[in-house]
């Protein structure tokens, strides 16, 4: 019974926020069909793993996480993503920072590693709190914070270059 109402809550939530989820998926996979696939698969995943949602008040972050993971999995499957080692990911240092003089913010954002880009998107486009982002990405807040600042720094360097 409790589970049924939870499923319903999730369904309602997804219907209301479907456009945000679609945009988020699209920002990763960059293609209409794939983004639709991600949204659909995320719903399947979500509803088949309702048990992993411990607290109904976390539906929002929980579902964002599923969308991001599904997007990344899809990219991985398509092998469009070049794997980056842990150290590079954590430090968020971009290899050739000042090679392109006229790079705009959009390109700069695209060139960030995924987990840094996710933080920027969630923070500035989806207006999430740092705590929520930490939950979505399954990281602790200080990691998120330091990545955010580093990402901003990198973006700034790129914009000014």
């Amino acid at each position, binding site marked *: 019974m409790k589970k049924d109402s939870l499923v319903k809550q999730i369904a309602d939530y*997804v219907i209301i926020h479907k*456009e945000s989820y679609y945009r988020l998926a699209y920002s990763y996979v960059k293609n209409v069909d794939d983004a*639709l*696939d991600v949204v659909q698969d995320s719903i399947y995943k979500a*509803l088949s*793993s309702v048990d992993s949602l411990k607290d109904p008040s976390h539906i929002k972050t929980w579902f964002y996480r599923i969308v991001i993971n599904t997007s990344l*999995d899809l990219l991985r*499957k398509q092998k469009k993503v070049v794997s980056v080692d842990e150290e590079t990911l954590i430090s968020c240092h971009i290899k050739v920072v000042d090679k392109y003089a006229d790079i705009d913010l959009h390109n700069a954002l695209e060139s960030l590693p995924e987990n840094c880009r996710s933080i920027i998107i969630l923070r500035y486009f989806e207006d999430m709190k740092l705590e929520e982002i930490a939950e979505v990405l399954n990281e602790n807040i200080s990691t998120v914070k330091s990545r955010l600042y580093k990402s901003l720094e990198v973006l700034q360097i790129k914009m000014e270059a």
Partner: protein
Amino acid sequence: MNGNNFEQLKKEYMDIPIPEELDFVVKKALQDSNIYSKKKRKQYYKSGITAASMAAALMAFTLLINTSPVFAETLSAVPIVKNLVKVLTFREYTVKEDTYNAEIKAPSIDGLNNKTLENTLNDKYIEENKKLYEEFLADMESLKENNGGQLGIKSGYVVKTDTDTILSIGRYVVNTVGSSSTIFKYDTIDKKNEVLITLPSLFKDESYVDIISENIKKQMVEQHKANNKKFYWVSGIDQKTSIKPFEKILKGQNFYINAENKLVISFDKYEVAPGYMGIVEFTIPTEIISNILVSTEYIK
């Protein structure tokens, strides 16, 4: 960082066009999930009860039939006994760890006199599910070594048709690693003659492959015309991708026979249509195959 820049960027992000299919896709996914999770869960639950009570009842029956000829006679008048061939949940594997979830259920057929058939099917189901479970464990271990991740698998079965003559069981596997994939496999049994029905065995010759394929292609195009969100990879519908269009069904294509005695051909996700279409099924009108059917016992 300049605030205006971010505003501009946010605007770009918010301007990502929302395709009109989104609504359809979301609703379909929610609907499908309801079928896959909620309803079925109830079915399992029921079959669990049935399993226990059936076992007890069967024992009593056997005793009574053997000891009392009168009882055996009265029994044949009771409809339930004709339907004694049942599907029960035989074995379950479950894994529940933070981000790893496996729910594997193997069906088991019971009540056939043809024990060779019963055992062959049941062994196949157990084998299939054991393999799934072992693969899942292996995947889970390798994921754990690589910093973890989410992994889910769910398998189970649906009784598609259960009439006096026909029992169609569909087994499904939903893999929720990466983009989720669903695979369905069907077995259809003739309960009276206790044989497994295969697709070729229904027809006099192999012309069914072309006849059915043509009909399915026609249905695909018609469905698309009626609702352009229904999309198939088939000639006759404008293709945006270079995916090879659907040509013909396999000789042993997935199928089952529904309660209306109609042949239903089933395709797995991605087999003939984009992922958002999910599993697609086509009911084949009996008129077009009546000439080549071996008998009208199953399909009418």
